[in-house]
Every structure is written in C-alpha cells, then in structure tokens.
C-alpha cells in the first residue's frame, strides 16, 4: 500500500497531475473549498489522469494535508493498495425516500462476504447523518466499520458538495467499500469539549430538530448565551455543542452540533437525532482541551490499528475534524493537527478536512455512528 500527495494548484512550478505519479492509484481523495470543487477543473483532470481510480472527495472550509491547514485551494492524496479491493457507489437523495433508505441503498451495493469497512462522504446540509449510518448498518451489519464525514462549507453553511462519480453534487452520499483480509484499520474519535451549566431536558423535538429544552424554546437559550454573536448563527452556535444522553443509559453521551436555525419556529437543526425525553447539557471548548481531545482520538486510532502489533504504522491517515473546533480554535486549530501527527509519527499519507459531521465507530464499540464536534481518525495499512 502506498500514498502520494498530489498537487492540484496547477502552478507552472508543478507537474501536471497525470504526470505526478509513476504508478496507477486505486483511490484519489480530494478535499477543497466549495467554489473550487464546483469549478470541476480539478476533479475532471483527476478523472482523466486516473480513469481506473475511485475519486472521492467533498467540500470543506479548511483542508488538512500533512501538518498543514489551508483555508483555500484543494488537496488530494493518491492511494494504492496491494491486496485490497475497492468498490464505490453513491446515492442521490432525490433517488432515495430518506436518509435511512439512502444508507440502505448504499449497503445493498457494497455488501459482500469480505467487505471489511466503508468510508462515507455525505453532503453536510439537509442530511440526517445518523440515519444514513443506521440504514447502512442495517444492511451490512455492525461488524463492518463505517467511517467518514459530512462535507463542510466553513462558517458559511451555504452549500456543500460531494463528488459523485467525480462530479460535484449537492445532494449525494458516496461510499467506498474495502474488501479483503490484508487491510488493517484504526479508528478514533474524541471531542475534548467541557459540559457546563445545568442539565436540561429535551421536552420537544422531532428527528434532528430541537424545539424546546425544559419547556422553553431552544433558540432562546442559544441566543442568550451567544449575545452579540447570535447574529452569526448558525455558525456561532457551534461554540456551544449539545451533549445529549438517554436517561436510561446516562453514561453513553453523544455530542450534537448545530447545522441550521429556524427563527420562526425558534428551533435548531442538528446534524444528528435529538431524541425527545433525553437529557442535554451545553458544552464549551477550551483550545487546549480540544487539542487534548484530538490526542485522545489519535491514541485510540493507533491502538486500534496496531492491536498490539507495534510494527504496524498507518499508511493513510484521514483526519476529519469538526468545523466547530476550527471556528473556536481559530489560529490554534493547527495545534490539534500537529498533536495528532506527533502521536501517529511523521508520515506522507495524512489528509483530511473540517466537516459538518464525523462518522466512525463509537469508542470501545464496533457500532458506527455520527459524531459532532470531534476529531475523528480513520487509519489504514496493509499487511502481507
């Protein structure tokens, strides 16, 4: 298995993309600004250059490659596998009845006896990421790990794109299946956010829409806490993620992040389910705690990948971090990427993006789900 960073700048000082590799990749990952991705130049040239490769990618406000964060331009990573087969597919939402059935559709195409894992990229707006993962899991079973993320658009929340067969689409979910026994995978996800303030009850909600906490409009609470920054909703809402938990299983916490607000309904739309009757607490981030969260995720992922065998190192590391972390940490966002690199070791195959939702198995569980406000890592390596 190998990886090689591709330069898509098109500068005169760089080789054209088709001449940057002397071998044929099986997979090319590409992340970039929404406007850059929608221009299709990069994706088209990648498709022409590597017609046999699965080209997967999505929009984001900030890309990650190596140790670097970049708020403009596009990054790409070519990946070649020695023993692992790949199969990709995508579903457009208008083809599917809903998110859950979209997940099921993907699963039906990908399912196979030696299906090991699925990497998923979905649009970041108007999506119930939890439902997609549930639908997919229903078909492939919980033993198949699912990771990935939802496309981002920085603090704008205007448009997100996913490459569907190499073509940018604002209404698709794309999935890549990994097949074969040689692949080693490692997952890690952690937030590092701190809960604060009183515990509240979700007294009215529907799917991903939260109407009331403790019988009062949820948007009122956010506006109160945000003060002047309420004008920047929904982006500023990311400063206060919501930790939710089932009263019957109070130790299993989930973190939800805001995707949209409805001023009339005084409601907030989150990236995942907000079950009525559950408990909720506001969270706030301290940059150093978020960095510690990223370190935690990296430690989990490496441990998971190695599974006791220290000789295994990740060939490809996909870092998907929440846009909320980026907004809160500002210039210090680079600290969390550097912290991850420090733990995983310097390597060429590190790429990622700031997302509107992260997907990976829950810590200490094989079941996958949607996470918010986390640093989520998917590590890949092949063994002979």
């Amino acid at each position: 298995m190998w990886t090689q960073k591709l330069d898509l700048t098109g500068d005169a000082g760089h080789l054209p993309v088709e001449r940057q590799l002397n071998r044929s990749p099986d997979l090319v990952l590409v992340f970039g600004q929404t406007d850059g991705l929608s221009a299709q130049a990069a994706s088209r040239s990648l498709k022409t250059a590597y017609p046999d490769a699965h080209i997967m990618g999505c929009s984001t406000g900030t890309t990650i490659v190596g140790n670097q964060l970049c708020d403009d331009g596009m990054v790409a990573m070519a990946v070649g596998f020695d023993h692992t087969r790949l199969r990709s597919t995508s579903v457009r939402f208008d083809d599917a009845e809903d998110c859950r059935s979209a997940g099921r559709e993907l699963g039906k195409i990908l399912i196979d006896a030696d299906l090991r894992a699925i990497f998923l990229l979905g649009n970041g707006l108007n999506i119930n990421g939890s439902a997609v993962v549930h639908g997919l899991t229903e078909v492939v079973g919980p033993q198949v790990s699912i990771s990935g993320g939802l496309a981002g658009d920085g603090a704008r929340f205007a448009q997100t794109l996913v490459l569907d067969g190499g073509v940018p689409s604002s209404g698709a979910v794309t999935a890549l299946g990994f097949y074969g026994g040689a692949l080693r995978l490692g997952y890690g996800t952690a937030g590092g956010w701190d809960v604060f303030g009183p515990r509240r009850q979700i007294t009215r909600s529907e799917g991903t829409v939260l109407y009331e906490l403790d019988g009062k409009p949820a948007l009122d609470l956010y506006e109160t806490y945000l003060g002047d920054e309420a004008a920047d909703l929904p982006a500023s809402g990311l400063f206060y993620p919501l930790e939710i938990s089932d009263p019957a299983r109070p130790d299993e916490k989930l973190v939800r992040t805001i995707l949209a607000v409805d001023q009339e309904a005084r409601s907030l739309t989150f990236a995942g389910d907000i079950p009525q009757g559950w408990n909720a607490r506001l969270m706030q981030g301290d940059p150093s705690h978020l960095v510690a969260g990223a370190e935690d995720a990296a430690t989990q992922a490496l441990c998971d990948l190695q599974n006791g065998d220290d000789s295994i190192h990740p060939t490809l590391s996909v870092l998907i971090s929440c846009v909320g972390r980026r907004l809160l940490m500002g210039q210090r966002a680079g600290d969390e990427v550097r912290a991850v690199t420090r733990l995983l070791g310097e390597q060429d195959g590190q790429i990622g993006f700031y997302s509107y939702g992260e997907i990976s198995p829950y810590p200490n569980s094989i079941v996958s789900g949607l996470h918010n406000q986390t640093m989520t890592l998917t590590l890949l390596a092949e063994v002979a």
Partner: protein
Amino acid sequence: MDKPLHSLLAQQLGDASESGSLNLEQFLQAINEAYAETDRQRVRTSRANRLMAEEIELQTDSLRAALRTSDIHKIRFEAALDAMPQALSLFDSGECLVVCNKMFRQLYALPADFKPEGRRLTDILAHSLLGDGAGTMDAATRLQGQLAMMAHIGIPVSIAGKIEQTWPSGQVIRISRNPVDDGGFIDLTADITESHSASARIAHMAHYDTLTDLPNRTLFHERLAAAVNRCGRSRNRRFALLCMNLDRFKVVNDTLGYPVGDALLIQAAERLRSLLRVDDLVARLSGDEFSLLVTNVKRAGDVHRLADRIISRLSAPYHIKGHQVVVGVSIGIEFSDDATLSADDYLRNADLALSQAKAEGRGCACVFKDHMHETVDRRRQLELELRHALKRNEFVVWYQPQFCVKQGIISGFEALVRWQSPRRGLVSPLEFISLSEETGLIDELGAWVLRRACADAAAMPEHLSIAVNLSPVQFRSRGIIDTVKSILRETGLAPHRLELEITEGIMIADAQEALQILRALKALGVKISLDDFGTGYSSLNYIRTFPFDKIKIDQSFVRDLGHSDDSLAIIRAVSGICTSLGICSVAEGVETDDQFQILKTEKCDSLQGYLFGRPTPVEATRKFYEVALQNYG
C-alpha cells in the same frame, strides 16, 4: 529570550517566514488576529459563566421551593398515613422498610426508641414487644405467636396476598400484601377483632333464636336435612323428630303480657336443654313452637320416655315476675322410618302428630300415623263448613232445664249450642267448639249463642234464668264485657236472669286479670257460675277470691254416686262450702231418682240432668216450666 516561544507565536513566525524572510505585516496581522480571538473567547467564556451562575441560582431557588413544598407534602402525607386505622408498612425491593405509619408502630408494639426504617420485617418483628410476655406465655401461645410471625413474613409478594391470623393477645389480624412497581411491597395490617366478632355474632344470629339462644328454624332445618341424608345412607342412623307446642301459652301472653311470655319461653327452653343428650338438637321454630331432633335412636321407647320427661318437666309451674304460671306441652313425634321422605315431610308429619296430641286433650305426645293426614283433611273440611254454618245460620240453641230443689220448680235453663249441618246432621259441640276456638270463630259463634239465648229467655217468664257458657278464649277476648252489655240492651233481658258459666281455666293463666273481667261482668248485674268444679285444680282459692253466684259440680261425681264414697264426700264438701259461703250449688248429670234423693239430702241447691229434661229446642221448653211443676212440686 530565556523562555521558548509560545507555540502560537512560533507558528505565526513560521507562517510569516515561509518565503525565507519575515513578512512583518503578515506576522503582525496574525498576532493581532490572535489577540482578537483570545478576547472573543474570554468574553464568551465570561458571559457563559455569568449566565450559568444565574441559571444555577434560579434552579437552586426553585429546588428550594420544591423542597419546601415537598416538606409540606411530607407532613400532610405523614398525617394522612398516621390517621389510617390500619398499620401501613412499605418495603423496598431489598425487603427493607421504607416508611411506616403510627399505627404500625402501635399495633406491632415497637419500642419508642426503635427505628424500624431500613430494617427487614424479620428484624422488626423480633423487636416487637408483642412477644415480651413470652416468659409468662404457655408453650402453645408462644408457638401461636411464632407461627403468626412466620406466616406474616411468608406472604407472597409477586401476587397480592392476604392472610388472617389470631395473635397470642387474642387480636384477630388481617394482613394484605401488594407488590409495588419498584419491586418492593406494601403491607396493610388491620385489627379486625371487632368486625370479626360482629361477623361471628351475625352468623350466630342467622342460626340462633335471639330470645332463647336455641338454634332457629334455619339451623334446625339444616341439621334435620343432614340427618335425613345420613339416614338415607345408613338405616342404622335412625332419628326422631319431636314437634312441641306449649299449651295455653297464648293465654299467658295475652293475659300476663309479652315480657312474661318471653320469660316463660326462656325458662321452657332452659328446661328442654337440660333434658337433652349432647347429640340432640332442640330449636325454637317460632312463638311457642319448639322442635327436637333426637339422633341415633335405638328404641322407640327411649323417645317416648324422653317425651314423657319433657311433658312432666315443662308442665311444672314456672315462677315469673311474681306470677306462678302453669302451661302444658303437646308433642308430635315422627320417626325416620320412611327413607323416601324429605326434611319438610318429616316436619309436616311431626306437626300433624302434634295436632293430634292437641286434639287428644293436650299435655300428651302422639306418634305420627298415616291416617293423621286424613284427620287433618277432615278437620280442614270441618273448619270450612263451620265458617259457612255461621253465615247460613245453621246453628241452633237448645235448652236444658235446671231444677230448684228448694222451690221444686224449673228455675231456668242452660243454653247449649247445636249445629244442624245439612251434610252431617246434628253435630255435637264436642266436635266443633275446640275447632272454633282454634280458628278464632268462637268470638262470633259465642256472641251469636249469647244473643240467641238472651232473646229466647226474654220471652220466657221472668222467674226463669238462662245460663250461657263462655269459652275461655271468648272470655279472654277484651270485648266480652261490651258484648254482654250490648246484648242485654238489645234483647231487653234483665241482667240478673243471665248466668255466665266459666271454667277454672280462665283463672290459671292470669287470675288477676280474670278477676277484673269477672268483677266487671258482675257489675253489669249478671250472675257468674263456676262450671265443671271438681275436675282440674279446683282450687278453693278461686272461690275465696271471687264471689261466684253458683258452683256447678262436675257430672262425673254425680255419675259415681252410689258407686263411690269419694264422690259423695266431694259433693258433700262442695255443697257444704257453698252453703257456708252463700253460693248456690248445682249438680249436673242427674239421671236417676237415687241420685236426686242423695243430692237433695246433701243440700244441693239446684240440679240438672236427663232426670229433669234433655236439651230441647226453644219451642219445646214451654212444657218444662208449665208441666214439670206438677211432677216435682
């Protein structure tokens, strides 16, 4: 610089130096932006902390308010629990007491300084002072207490359970246990001693007569049915059924009042009880009606002897509230010899035998015979005809002359009722008087006879008197005085010409009341004569307490004259007493001249009998007071 660069500054410096030389503008912009970010972060954090503090303050306030409300609820809840008449105890899923009320501590006698909360039931019961007297209890009582405790602890929780137990203290306790949703249970313990004994009393009342505390008709019927059932299975289980009525009880009740009647029933019941074997059952069915079930009858003779003992014991005088009361008892007996009969059949047969005993003069026992059914039918038919007879005017009054020895003339007549039945011919009073007494017809019949006799006498010469018999039943009916008064007025008969004949039976029940009636009658101017003297008690006391005008010596003594010296002695004595007291003596049943001579010698004032004339219709009486004068003048 001594200290290493802040990581952010190092990053900013690195970013601004990418081209090889420091881009100062970019560097300063990054620093400036970092300060602004830090400021925003600080403002955000400070705002969040302030709001959070406010929210927590509000929540604390409302929590305190809720706690105050909860305290009030707790006080009310405890007051409600403590006001409960039952002991309540709530246990958690670990079977430890969560809450109990005052009655729980009280009923289980828990020491004042003992805190049952948090303890298991076994532990709590072990602390109860209920068993404190254990040292003084006998082994059985101690065991009873221990068993009750074990039963209490062992009530199942899964389903609602309920037990009743008696504690060594004698308290009857009901404990109900109900599961609670959280896996615990709640016990309600109630002292139901009172309601238990009330239930027992009610159950007793359902089966026992409240006056005599003898079994009642219901219980008797149950036992009889059981005996019939046993007898049906085994012929060896022969039983006898005795039905009893107290003779003259109604008289006692009517004359002495219900309190005396009730006391009499109680004493009679007591006497009956004393005569029974353990297995026998005596019941009061109603009024003066008692029944006796004698089981395991070996010989009929045993039952007859028992009946005799009952008659003898119950007929002995009773002393009640200053009165001496004498009643008899009539008994009907039926043996379980016919396996096809039901309990009701046996009762009916014994009742028929009782009727027969009464018909045979009371104070005796009769065994049921099949023909009694026919007797009853005949009696019922007779009663029916008797009622019609009054309406159809089938009764006639015949007159038997009375001879005045001193004057040698017929001085009057005794009126005697006869029934000229179109179906039966002339019927003797013996056949219908007692029946009309039992059926209540006697009042109407008696008044009719009196009116007829008075009317007939009014048409006779004035020196002739008319004697009319008053049945005891008729005498006791309160209207007798008014009846006599109005008949005298209607017929115009001079009161001194009317003689009312009574028997000593009227004196036995309540002599005082009888005397009052007699005095009232006498005050009307009529004469009172004591009939059938010499039979029954013939207490001389009667003669002393009331100034009778006449005493009629029973005809049995006259019949024996010439054969028995005793009869002569009695006649002589009575006649002597009458002479001394200025009472007119009358001898009845004079049939021969010898008898006439003796009675004349013994100074009987008046005589009556076939020798002087048989009873005749009124049309035929004329010859007595016209012709007979010459014969005996």
